[in-house]
């Protein structure tokens, strides 16, 4: 297994990263091709008040994003991030790398690694904190949302008068975001959305996969809250339904992300798990937003995917958009539980400056 990992690192990731930079810098050699490079990042400050109190000032995720067009039909999109991973070290991640073929009107075929379009957040915000309405992702991302999928995707957007969209993809399961083990672990995602106005979007999705070893869950790499390693190494079936409602108007902003999943193991049977994130913001003087949010996550007693866990989070915050490429968020959070009190309650105060160049 380790050998596979090394082969993947040396023979796949490095050439891809070289291609990524070649695409950027070889632009002048190809008059037909146009490419744009952007950079995003954020700097964080957080104070945690629980049994112990501490404060951190840290460099957040930094990323490079490239969008290139080969011709009218083929385009390329790549996104790599750098994350602090200990004293003087940074981890390089390939977050998105996809080749898109726009075969008919607004219908496309996409191959590569992309964000799994299971909900509004994962389909619209990706990694740039600049676009996040709150400082952190919803709790469900730290437990079961499969952030990335490597595979093949059929996409349609802005179809018809009512702006319908669809995504149908087949690819890697939750065990790996970078290698699609075609005959051993596959995930299927089907998603539809509807945009009745420019500001509003409704979406529904279904996701299913089976895994041979539930302890290998790459999807947990986006946790920013408490998270323990999965000790269960047996097979597990995972089915998930999501619903999103988003409204980002000139004055009011509302986002609701609902997620339900059902896990099944031979050991403990079926477990039903649920999570909901609600954000409401009120914009004033164009660049200021005051917001509040409520996030809740509950997993069943016999769940062997995320293990029994329940958490509630209350959010109160303020965002100032200095420009479309620079904003500042300040947020007060209160965490507590419904049943299991082992995690305890705590307050967190966070400030985040996020930017895009």
């Amino acid at each position, binding site marked *: 297994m380790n050998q596979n990992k090394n082969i993947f690192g040396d023979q796949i990731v490095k050439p891809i990263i070289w291609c990524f930079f070649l695409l950027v810098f070889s632009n002048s050699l190809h008059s037909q091709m*146009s490419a*744009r490079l952007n950079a995003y990042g954020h700097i964080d400050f957080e104070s945690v008040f629980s049994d112990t109190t501490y404060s951190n000032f840290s460099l957040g995720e930094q990323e490079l994003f490239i969008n290139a067009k080969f011709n009218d039909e083929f385009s390329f*999109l790549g996104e790599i991030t750098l994350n602090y991973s200990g004293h003087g070290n940074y981890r390089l991640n390939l977050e*998105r790398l996809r080749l898109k073929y726009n075969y008919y009107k607004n219908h496309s075929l996409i191959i590569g690694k992309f964000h799994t379009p299971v909900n509004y957040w994962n*389909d619209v915000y990706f990694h740039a904190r600049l*676009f996040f309405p709150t400082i952190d992702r919803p709790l469900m991302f730290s437990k079961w949302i499969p952030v990335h999928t490597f595979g093949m995707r059929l996409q349609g957007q802005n179809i018809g008068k009512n702006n319908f969209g669809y995504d149908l993809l087949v690819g890697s399961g939750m065990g790996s975001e970078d290698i699609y083990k075609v005959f051993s672990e596959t995930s299927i995602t089907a998603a539809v959305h509807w945009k009745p106005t420019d500001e509003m979007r409704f979406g529904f999705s279904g996701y299913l996969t089976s895994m041979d070893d539930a302890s290998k869950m790459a999807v947990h790499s986006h946790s920013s809250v408490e998270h323990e390693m999965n000790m269960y190494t047996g097979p597990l079936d995972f089915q998930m339904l999501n619903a999103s409602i988003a*409204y980002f108007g000139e004055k*009011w902003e509302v986002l609701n992300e609902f997620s339900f999943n059902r896990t099944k193991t031979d050991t403990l049977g079926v477990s039903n798990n649920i999570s909901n994130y609600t954000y409401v913001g009120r914009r004033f003087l164009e660049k200021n937003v005051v917001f509040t949010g409520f996030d809740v996550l509950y997993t069943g007693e016999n769940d062997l995917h995320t293990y029994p866990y329940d958490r509630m989070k209350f959010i109160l915050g303020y965002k100032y958009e200095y420009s*479309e490429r620079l904003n500042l968020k300040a947020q007060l959070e209160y965490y507590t539980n419904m049943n299991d009190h082992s995690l305890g309650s705590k307050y967190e105060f966070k400030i985040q400056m996020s930017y895009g160049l």
Partner: protein
Amino acid sequence: MVYSLRHFLIIVLFLVTGNNLNSQTNLNDVSVVVIGNKTGSEKISETTIKEYFKGKYNKWPNKKTVIVALASSNHPNVEWYSNLMFNKSFFAVKKYWYSLVFQGRNDPPYFFASDQELIEFVKLNPGAIAIVEKSNKVPENLKIKLNE
């Protein structure tokens, strides 16, 4: 009860859409003209042309790629044009497009500081569209007529 419910719904509707209650100006009523180069759409409805500016379509009916050209922050009419085409401030338009590009859904628009620059860009790029004031000298073949 019904009376109270009706008032409640009206208040909710106002809170949610209050900003959109100001109706948009009809482009034919103001002194602007929509220009495009080889779009295959010499006559088009106002609603449809606005959808092209908003990135709803990637291609024209003649298969040419849609290239959106917009007024930049240095353009004297930037807020007016933004309001006409998007019913938003220029700040909101930039945010809207910035997000679309990052999602990988659209190519980024091009921004120009004057009507002359917009006209020159459209002239040189098949598939490009922009709006400029009618008072400018615009070649007839670039003008897109809008249906009522």
